[in-house]
């Protein structure tokens, strides 16, 4: 497992307590899990994502991510409607490991309340929360 100083935590993202990241886009926001989370989970073998169109509140479960011997729930860092899911993960769940902020993204949502985005942590705060 990586030491804290080995983690890749981009500056332009927002982070949640449950290790999801959020990237604000033009009309929506993209969500995935952080380098820390993918490293802790180990080799990811399956990602279960919600149907497009679902309305989910902040903190609600939007899916699960599985390694060989563990399942972890994925929680909405903000509330909103799911507008897209990363279909590629069905065939290639390992993208969450190899490229967690790029091809390993999970869902896009139309954010219901922009204040919820502002309430998320920036890189420095997240790093602190990780104990670094």
């Amino acid at each position, binding site marked *: 497992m990586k030491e804290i100083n080995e983690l890749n935590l981009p500056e332009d993202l927002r982070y949640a307590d449950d290790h999801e990241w959020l990237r604000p886009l033009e009309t929506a926001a993209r969500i995935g899990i952080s380098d820390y989370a993918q490293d802790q989970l180990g080799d990811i*073998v*399956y990602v279960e994502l919600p149907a497009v169109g679902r309305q989910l509140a902040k903190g609600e479960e939007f899916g699960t991510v*599985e390694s060989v011997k563990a399942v972890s729930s994925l929680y909405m860092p903000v509330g909103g409607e799911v507008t897209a899911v990363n279909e590629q993960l069905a065939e290639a*769940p390992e993208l969450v490991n190899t490229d967690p902020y790029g091809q390993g993204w999970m869902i896009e949502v139309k954010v219901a309340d922009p204040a919820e985005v502002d309430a998320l942590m920036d890189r420095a705060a997240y790093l602190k929360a990780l104990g670094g």
Partner: protein
Amino acid sequence: MNAPLGTTGLILDEPLLWERGRPGRRGACLPPADVPPSPLDPELCGDGPDFPDLSEVDLVRHFTRLSTWNYGVDTGFYPLGSCTMKYNPKTHERQAALKGFAAAHPLLPASLCQGALQLIWELERDLAAITGMDAVSLQPAAGAHGELAGMLVIHAHHQHQGHQRAKIIIPDTAHGTNPASAALCGYRPVAVASGPEGVLEPAAIEAVMDEETAGIMVTNPNTLGLFETHIREIAAIVHAKGGLVYADGANLNAVMGIVDMAAIGVDVIHLNLHKTFATPHGGGGPGSGPICVRRQLEPYLPVPRVVKDGDQYHLETDRPLSIGRMGSFHGHFGVMVKAYSYIRSMGADGLRRASELAVLNANYLKEKLKQDFHLAYDRPCMHECVFSDRRQAPFKVTTLDMAKRLMDYGFHPPTIYFPLVVHGAIMIEPTETESKEDLDRFVTAMRAIAEEARTEPETVKSAPRYTKVRRLDEVTAARKPCLVG
């Protein structure tokens, strides 16, 4: 410290079944067709399944070779914690194969199956005597099935009381089957942590037990191998709020003839005949998971019930409060025959002695290994003890690595990474059928591995080396499942 490796022999390869054989061969005889053919409407007929055609020799070689890649209790020491891998007496196989048992149809009229019904009836009484409970059902097919039956009994009890409850208390040391079985009854598990001594504390139960909680599921001795010393107070707390106490009897092997389950406040307990009562596990089953209950819960037991009337036995299904039927017929009768044979061979003193020696063996291993391995709870244990890989962590050697290395020394590894409350758990249950010299050989191997972890960690991390296959790619197996050939 030199421990001889246990595996240096010949390992034969063998292809998949359908890579053998030729169409037209056969490995079994059919009886003569002594009735005229009566063709079925071709619209209803398929082509027949595409099974390979093998001769009897092909068949025997194939499965004999496969068998040599397995490790069983008959091969050697199998200290798989929580699984009670004791020796399975050979006479059990003889008894279960008796034609009057093996060929008996389950729907025979009662007058034609008195022997089978009597065996079930007597085994129920034997298990009631061993646990101290009042009534027994042998219907459940395995431990988890017994848990489900027990939870359904508790669910039916609350239903009959007029108020269904929503939650069930489950300690964090519990087997995963506990919450999964409770969930089938619609109960939401409430997790409770064990205290610093590794056992449940009454205050923790008091804090969560209420009138919306159906009861508690408790394994005793628990999965840390410790007796739940506060069990009677805990049962009193649960009972005071109208709840019931469910005991997971997976670890009964520690306390036969020692503990009275009714006296400690248990209302329902399931047993695993394939653990405590020496029936073979068969590479994953069949097991048998009878449930034993207090008198007031008997009306809820699954149907059919075996009833003795004078000197005649029969089956009854008309039990209006029963949770219903649990399986196709009367449970795993073939397994019951073996457990009955075991109990009747051991007798009261033999069963108690088995528990005493199981506990002696576990404490002996605990003392012998605790210099080299971190002991999660350094207290006198029951039938099993739990170590961890904490002392090997500085060398980046994990529990998994050491488990794999044990194979090279000719042993089956202990249960690993369970219970979840011990990080890197190594759970060792020797059982009573292992002799001192076998335990000593295991100790020598474990100490050798501890030494290797310090001096040549790569040897441990790259184990096993002498098995049929080496570590397998489980990640690809799960990402791209190939379940059929």
